[in-house]
C-alpha cells in the first residue's frame, strides 16, 4: 500500500477500482458540472473512500480500494464509548 498523507475521511466519488471523481474532474477541468457521487447498492461495486484510521497503535490513512482481492466487512457504528 502506498503511503498516503493523513487527511479527513471522504468518499472518492467513484466505486472501488475506478479513478477518483476529483481526479477525473481535474483532467476535465473545463467542465464545471456537479460531481455525482457513487452510492452503495447491493450487487454493485462499493463506493471507494479514504480516511484516517487508528490501527495497531499507529495513525494511518486507509483506502477501501486497497482491499480489492480480499473479502471485507465494513462496519459503521454510532460512536466510541457508547453502550451497545
Amino acid at each position, binding site marked *: 500500500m502506498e503511503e498516503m498523507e493523513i487527511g*479527513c475521511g471522504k*468518499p472518492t466519488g467513484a466505486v472501488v477500482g475506478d479513478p477518483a471523481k476529483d481526479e477525473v474532474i481535474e483532467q476535465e477541468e473545463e467542465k464545471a458540472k456537479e460531481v455525482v457521487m457513487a452510492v452503495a447498492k*447491493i450487487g454493485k461495486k462499493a463506493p471507494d473512500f479514504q*480516511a484516517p484510521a487508528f490501527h495497531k497503535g499507529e495513525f494511518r490513512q486507509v483506502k477501501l480500494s486497497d482491499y480489492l482481492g480480499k473479502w*471485507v*466487512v465494513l462496519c459503521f457504528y454510532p460512536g466510541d464509548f457508547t453502550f451497545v
Partner: protein
Amino acid sequence: MDVEVLAVSVDSQFVHKVWQEEELSRMVDGGVPFPMVSDGAGKIGSVYGVYDEAGGVDVRGRFIIDPDGVIQAIEVLIPPVGRNVSELLRQIQAFQLVRKTKGAEATPSGWQPGRPTLKPGPDLVGKVWEVWKTDLAF
C-alpha cells in the same frame, strides 16, 4: 475465513486510540485488531446511506464486500440494537461458498456450514420440497 474488517464511526482517530486503550483492550486481549476508521463529517456514511444527519452519527450499517469490490450484503440497524456476529459469520461462509462454486450451488434459508446446498437448474424446479424441509430454516 480470510476477511478484513474496517470499523467506521464519526469519532476522530484520536478518540479511537483512547477508546481502544481505555476500554476495548479490557474487553479484547490486545485491543481490536482491525483499523478503526474516522468518518468525521459523515461523508462516507452518507454515500453508504447510513449517516443520520439529525443525530450526527453513522448508524449500525454492515456491508459484506467481495474480492471484486462488489457489495454482497447490507444490514442496517438503529443504534440501540446490537448485531449478531454468528449471523455475520454464517453469511460470509455462504457468500464464499456461492462464489467458490461460481453460483452452481445456492444456500437455502437457514443454511449452516455442513448442511446441504441447492443446485439451481431445470431439475430442481418444483422439487425444492423434496430436498429442503421447513425445519431446516431454523
